[in-house]
């Protein structure tokens, strides 16, 4: 009975290690095809990268703006309520801009994109897997990592930071709406305060995270897609796991990167 538990734990640990190893292999091969492959006359097609960029970038702008605008509004309302007790409603401006740029913009945008793009990647690769299309690519001598994974990773690597910049802007507009229209702060004063406490460092610490998030979303999406089993049901399950895994890893990575900046400055 007791041994049974150990056996199960052992199996689970082995499975996790295997998943980790496979994930590292996928990452390694992606980097190989991105940087070494071109020297073997097998470049990644730039057309494919641009197609993915259009799909991932332009079609996510609306939802990112929507989410961040309302986050900015909510943040402004919540902080105004607290700050008004201390007579410092003017600081709503800087509070909103700093917390959006440092933290909320990158993380919320990444989560939205994980739900949208990460799920789409897994569904696409997964249904290709269960319909023998991945095997067909391999049989044609077309490496699926070069053909499918690299364009997605590269595209998201460049598009996510762009989306975050747009999202940050939308969030600050949200704060501005409350600050100027509701709290009656002078528009010029609001903008000045918003940028007074916002240093360049806030923006680039925020943006540096997004490169990590982009890799996580694209690679987890592809990994789950490649390991899809069992028809349409399998695709659905893989998609769910992909999104949940991305969420968890994004939060963990956020904690780690923030920690690095935090302890470095101490």
């Amino acid at each position, binding site marked *: 009975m007791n041994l049974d538990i150990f056996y199960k734990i052992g199996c689970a640990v082995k499975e996790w290690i295997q998943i980790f190893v496979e994930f590292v292999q996928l990452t390694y091969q992606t980097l190989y095809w991105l940087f070494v492959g071109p020297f073997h006359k097998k470049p990644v097609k730039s057309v494919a990268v641009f197609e993915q960029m259009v799909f991932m970038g332009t079609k996510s702008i609306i939802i990112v703006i929507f989410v961040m605008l309302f986050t900015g509004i909510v943040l402004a309302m919540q902080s105004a309520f607290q700050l008004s007790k201390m007579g410092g409603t003017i600081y709503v401006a800087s509070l909103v801009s700093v917390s959006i740029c440092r933290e909320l913009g990158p993380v919320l945008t990444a989560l939205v994109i994980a739900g949208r793009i990460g799920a789409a990647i897994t569904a696409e690769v997964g249904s290709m897997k269960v*319909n*023998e*299309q991945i095997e*067909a690519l*391999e*049989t*044609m001598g*077309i490496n699926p990592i070069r053909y499918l994974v690299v364009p997605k990773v590269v595209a998201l690597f460049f598009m996510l930071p762009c989306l975050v910049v747009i999202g940050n802007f939308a969030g600050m507009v949200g704060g501005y709406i409350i600050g100027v229209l509701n709290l009656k702060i002078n528009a010029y004063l609001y903008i000045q305060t918003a940028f007074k406490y916002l240093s360049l460092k806030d923006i680039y610490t925020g943006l540096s995270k997004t490169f990590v998030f982009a890799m996580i979303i694209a690679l987890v999406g592809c990994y789950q897609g490649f390991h899809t089993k069992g028809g349409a049901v399998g695709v659905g399950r893989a998609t769910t796991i992909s999104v949940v895994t991305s969420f968890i890893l994004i939060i963990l990575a956020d904690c780690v990167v923030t920690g690095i900046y935090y302890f470095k400055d101490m």
Partner: protein
Amino acid sequence: MPEKRVAISVQNLVKYFGGRKVLDGVSLDIYQGETFVIMGGSGCGKSTLLRHMTGAIAPTSGKVFFHGRDLTTMNDEEKEKLKRRFGMCFQSAALLDYLNVADNVGLPLVEHTHLDPKIIRMIVKMKLGLVGLQGYEDLMPNMLSGGMKKRVGLARAIALDPEIVFYDEPTAGLDPVVCAVVDKLILDLSHKLLLTSIVVTHNMESVYRIADRAAMLYRGKVLEVGTPEEIKNSKNPIVQQFIHGQIEGPIDFLRLDQESSELVDS
């Protein structure tokens, strides 16, 4: 008859899938230029055998030789080069669903050659002409019927002028007339392009129509190899039951496990 060269030689192939033996010591020689049919009941390992021949999966033990070169120990780069000399027609056609017919057929050309897009379009048109689908270039795979998909898959398989074409159940799920058309297509292509064809099927009519030689696979073993005539006159009761589609006989659908395995061994 001129001396026959062995194109593909399978030696003592054994494959386990998670503890279950799917292929159990398969040995076959396939000669250059012939049309070789692999037949057998559902789930007996035909597709798995085909996958080994194309190098898509590695055997548990045993070897596969392509013109004397061992596929199972080859590194990926060599294998990828070799795969350009193969064409494969999948059981589910396996067309990429985000590409239209012309792009699907042209995919191997785009990926493996540096031909001008105009020339690629001409080749695609010609290959589609060979399978009787000229004028369907701009349709998406989901607008095609099952039989048309299979023929597009066939056109894609011969896009790079391969030496060997593998067909996984090219006629399954098609009406008798289209069946005959596809069979005739396979024969025509083999004769016109001097291909070696390896066809998996469980349609006996097809076997008689196209096969130079045929092998009967049963529970992971080769029961019988020979010309269609020889197969027809086989003394093996399993082969007889299979080709006549009888319910009574050594293939017991409900108790597949014990008794018939003794027959195989004897």
